């Protein structure tokens, strides 16, 4: 909790000062953490390039549905879309983290899978598909992971109403 609590802070500041662009993507700073904003075309290429730079572990992959909050701050040149896929990469050699925020439009919520770069993203991508309905092309197992396989709807979407949908159980007499 002290100033020394997060050693990535200083490094992050330097990196942002040095380059406002990284692999051709806008870079921003969020509370001292480095965030880059690739497009869907750049996405896998950037993750591969970062993996070569040492970000060898995909620590986390999740998504946010920004349906009610489209005015969020983003760096210039990034068009806000409804969905955002957030990937946290970890470099254990140089002890640093980087975050990717990828804009995904609602009417074409399809992105490429990271499975071939980081196989550990498999379950996390399934979770994002399950919860948000964002599809990952060429994913080895595009099934639901947490909800029952015949569930309809994607619960973490902001327009998925809470407590108003009867709970579905397969084969149960209700």
């Amino acid at each position: 909790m002290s100033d020394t609590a997060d050693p990535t802070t200083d490094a992050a500041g330097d990196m942002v000062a040095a380059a406002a662009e990284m692999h051709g993507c806008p870079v921003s700073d969020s509370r001292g953490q480095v965030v880059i904003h690739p497009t869907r075309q750049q996405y896998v290429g950037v993750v591969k390039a970062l993996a070569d730079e040492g970000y060898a572990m995909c620590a986390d992959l999740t998504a946010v549905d920004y349906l009610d909050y489209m005015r969020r701050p983003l760096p210039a040149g990034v068009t806000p879309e409804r969905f955002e896929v957030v990937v946290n990469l970890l470099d254990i050699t140089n002890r640093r983290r980087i975050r990717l925020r990828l804009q995904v439009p609602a009417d074409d919520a399809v992105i490429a899978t990271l499975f071939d770069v980081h196989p550990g993203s498999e379950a996390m991508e399934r979770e994002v598909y399950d919860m948000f309905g964002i599809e990952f092309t060429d994913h080895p197992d595009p099934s639901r992971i947490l909800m029952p396989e015949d569930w309809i709807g994607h619960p973490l979407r902001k327009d998925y109403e809470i407590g108003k949908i009867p709970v579905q159980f397969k084969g149960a007499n209700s």
Partner: protein
Amino acid sequence: MTATIRDEGAQEMRGRSELTARELMREVGSVLRMSEAEVAKLGDMPDDPDEDQTMILNMGPQHPSTHGVLRLMLELKGETVLRCKPIIGYLHTGMEKTGEQLTFMQGGTNVTRMDYLSPFNNELVFSMATEQLLGIDGEIPERAVWMRMLLSELNRMSSHLLFMASNGMDLGAVSMMIYGWREREEVLRFFQKVTGLRMNHNFIRPGGVAADLPAGWRDDVLRLLDLIPERLDEYDILMTGQPIWRERLQGVGVITPDEALALGATGPILRSTGVAWDLRRDMPYLHYDQVEFDVIVGSYGDAFDRYAIRLNEIRESMKIVRQILDMMPIGDYRIQNKKVTPPPRARIDESMEALIHHFKIFTEGFKVPEGEVYVGIESPRGEVGCYIASDGSPTPYRMHVRAPSFVNVQCLPHMMRGGLVADAVAVISSVDPVLGEVDR
């Protein structure tokens, strides 16, 4: 392209006849960082057995050794596990969705129930993320920081003690179950004295901790520190040195450093492969940079290494707790920032403003500036992370927890591949998943 993907497909493991060769090879090859041709040449497995020689066996979700409701589908040839697929979600209660309804003030009650064996670590990561968003992460009083460290280290001990118990039980050392629970209970008794609850404390909150340490806490901790080392030595006699124990664990569930990194495994699983990665040392948070401790690593990446790492991490945690006892300062246990801290009870009786403030903070919560932040800390199971996106309101716009068990469960197919079905239990146990956190 989308036609195949839109088909949500069954979650169950499919038989070999329904899979293409590419799918089968991708399962293995991608993790080993090999091309499909190289995988085909591997030949360490009975290649392409006839489907009438294999059997798909369903294990769980009601199996006692699956630590809750983990379900595994195992493809067996005789006693050998050829493929394995974990199926999860039986405990899914939508905690991330719930997290969007609760204010930052209330969020702790939600996250503490995810990894119910290390509740303090979950509360800590949530509080740290909230504090970073508020920009008060540098202003947390010293006593609160050291209290957080004390509790999270004791929590690491209680969690690993429970692992000792369940690991022993799973492998047939049934008396170990009782011993492990007994020692864990001693730690939980201390938690009850400090927080009022044995589990799900909601004690570490944004801005500090909920209350000061009770009178006599130091004696209680010292009693624990005197009691547990002897008991750990008993575990050594009961398990570590025993030929039967070693036979059951050594060489079982082996994973290489490359595989562990590729799969995103953290915590004891990653360290068992020899990668010395511990966020407490490598990306220090709280005051872990001011205490001395060793990061325990293994060398074979097998179930025995993971057992030994956890056993010795209990010892390291006790070393840290001893230093915390010496360093614990006097002072505030929560930040004196009116924004996040409710007024003291006595003030409410004499001041209308304090009453209003108290009412507002508990009904509406406090507003957190716009932004998004990811914080990761070392829980007993690996990196537990919290990603919060705030839209400036008192509730998180999105609250995501990166659960170490959720990611670590992906290692199971690779640890079990080619092993015996009897060792499957040892492998599950050595990963030490907490299903509350896997499913959230």
